[in-house]
């Protein structure tokens, strides 16, 4: 019956459907191949499991483009039914302004408190004890992706950690291979630095600096070592003339570069290119130094509309997003980890399984997005994109600027 309904919904007939069914407009910035396929799973599950209809409002170009659109719609008094944000501190103000709906009743009815793993995901959705968003996946940043063929050709063993990778770099240069790929966009530079920090200095230090704004620690000895490593990395990435992260990943896939630090979404690129984990490429969680993954991700928020029909559809969507079947089908397509531990991901590949193991063992840390405001992240972007492109800035100077950003953060 529901199947039939969703079939009909594909055509215009749906508009004349049942009174209780509502059209729910969902805005997101998932528009690439894999992302769109993942969203399609949401839409399918939503329309099969409930009587409502998913109206897709995709806007390409990432958060920078989509966010002003979402915020305008909300403050313009004509909000969409639901929208995607990276959870963390981004939506705080909309909640404080009373523009987002309290979804605690859905969370309680569905027992989110017991199933969401790690619980920190739900904490990121919670303000003053009320739950405002539905977390849908876990993305982690702390991965080093290596091309096996590059190292074989150089007569070297594939590195098992960051130091071995750095040591292999001169040999790769000699052979005319780019040791490491890094895209020119600023978020990639600061992201890679944060990974160095989380693994070489450790997650506790990252948490103290970004979470508590500990400026002494930011200027201290451990961080000096991280900056030294960043300097090594800067030498390794010189000459990679690409902008987008997936173009950088493509250098690794096509064996033109030795490796890249990038989040687990890079996995999708290897999969699309038909590469096999362990044979064609190697993934090192935590750079092989400190196996830890951050639990950032995406979440859906629901604006206040005061329209009972829309509210019913919002409740239904929130519940659907965390259902086990939805979680599996969505995350397999997206390449991310599910937010609940009780689902079976037999179809996952090697790297994804490594991630799941680390998650199960509890070696997790909060995502930088949950600790920093976007403003701070933006400042870090500016600092590190300049640092990684401009060899005239010394590690010490960069650290001094880093300290002043940490001092100013709130």
């Amino acid at each position, binding site marked *: 019956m529901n199947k039939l309904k969703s079939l009909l919904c594909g055509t215009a007939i749906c508009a004349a459907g049942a009174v209780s069914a509502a059209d729910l407009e969902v805005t997101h910035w998932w528009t690439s191949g894999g992302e769109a396929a993942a969203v399609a799973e949401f839409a399918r599950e939503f329309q099969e499991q409930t009587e409502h209809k998913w109206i897709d409002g995709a806007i390409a170009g990432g958060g920078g483009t989509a966010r*002003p659109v979402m915020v305008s719609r909300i403050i313009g008094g004509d909000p969409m039914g639901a929208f995607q944000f990276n959870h963390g501190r981004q939506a705080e103000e909309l909640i404080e302004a009373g523009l987002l709906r309290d979804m605690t009743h859905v969370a309680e009815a569905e027992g989110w408190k017991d199933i969401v793993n790690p619980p920190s995901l739900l904490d990121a959705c919670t303000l003053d004890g009320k739950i405002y968003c539905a977390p849908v996946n876990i993305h982690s940043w702390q991965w080093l992706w290596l091309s096996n063929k590059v190292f074989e050709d150089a007569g070297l063993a594939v590195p098992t950690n960051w130091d071995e990778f750095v040591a292999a770099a001169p040999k790769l240069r000699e052979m005319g291979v780019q040791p490491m790929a890094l895209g*020119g*966009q*600023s978020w990639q530079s600061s992201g890679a630095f944060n990974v160095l920090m989380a693994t070489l200095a450790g997650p506790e230090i990252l948490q103290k600096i970004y979470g508590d704004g500990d400026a002494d620690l930011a200027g201290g000895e451990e961080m000096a070592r991280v900056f030294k490593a960043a300097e090594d990395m800067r030498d390794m990435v010189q000459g990679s003339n690409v902008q987008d992260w997936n173009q950088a990943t493509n250098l690794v896939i096509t064996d033109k570069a030795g490796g890249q630090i990038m989040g687990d979404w890079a996995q999708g690129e290897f999969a699309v290119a038909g590469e096999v984990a362990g044979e064609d490429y190697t993934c090192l969680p935590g750079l092989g130094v400190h196996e830890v993954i951050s639990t950032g991700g995406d979440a859906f928020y629901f604006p206040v509309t005061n329209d009972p029909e829309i509210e019913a559809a919002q409740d239904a969507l929130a519940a659907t997003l965390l259902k086990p079947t939805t979680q599996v089908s969505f995350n397999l397509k997206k390449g991310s980890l599910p937010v609940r531990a009780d689902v079976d991901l037999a179809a996952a590949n090697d790297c994804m399984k490594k991630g799941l193991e680390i998650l199960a063992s509890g070696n997790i840390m909060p995502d930088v997005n949950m600790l920093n405001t*976007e403003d701070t992240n933006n400042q870090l972007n500016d600092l590190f994109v300049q640092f990684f492109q*401009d060899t005239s800035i010394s590690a010490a100077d960069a650290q001094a600027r880093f300290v002043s950003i940490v001092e100013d953060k709130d």
Partner: protein
Amino acid sequence: MATGKPIRLFRNLSSKIAAIPMILTVLFVFVGGTAWTVTYSFTSSKLLPKTKFVGLRQYERLWETERWLVSIENLMIYGLCSMVLSLLIGFILAALLDQKIRFENTFRSIMLYPFALSFIVTGLVWQWLLNPDFGIQKIINGLGFTSFEFNPLYNSDIVIYGVLIAGLWQGSGLVMVLMLAGLRGIDQDIWKASRVDGIPAWKTYLFIIIPMMRPVFITTLVLIASGIVKLYDLIVAQTGGGPGIASEVPAKYVYDYMFQGQNLGQGFAASTMMLLAVLIVIIPWAYLEFGGKKRG
């Protein structure tokens, strides 16, 4: 100017009624919006505008930010070059097309068509053409000139000139058309007279024609200058502000901090500085343009 002496408000009434949309726009959008922006630049607004005032803190931070300083420097270089070159190129091309040549339509269309394409597209195409691995450099190297190097987009020192090439490609055609319209408005007799007097063509252009085209030049200047101040899309599409922060511009700083960084206050402070700079240029101009006329 008006006949009779009715009550002042009703003098020239139709004109005032016709100007209502303009007056509303000026008052509510430009004056109102600017006042709003300036006010909120003194607050610590993040994602949403809020009236939590923090004095000059946003401005202090702005002027301590290296990216802002780089942005201003880039805008000055780009602005100056773009202004001079597009006027120069536009005028010379218009003068060439004004020589009773054949295929004028074709040439004019060729020069104007890039303006139909958005900056996003322009940036994308030129990013490609200037890419050292498969663009112009590669082709010329392939022709045997192996030492030829033209790689503006990945060199911090000259990246802004790479953007300039694309910007001129997109915009100079329109300048040419405006100039051509201006040239066509010049009386034929002027040319006859200058020929009779034996004045060389370039002198006629420089000392007679150009001064006569003042309104056209003003329109064109405003058009170019407003485009320069708002330069944003082209940078995003062509360089993304890179390498590093070498091709950042103020409008991008404003946008990134307002929406990417969710720091409206900082974005507003930056845009207030931009508006201030524009005011400094516009007020003397308005004074010259209108102040003199009333008396003269």
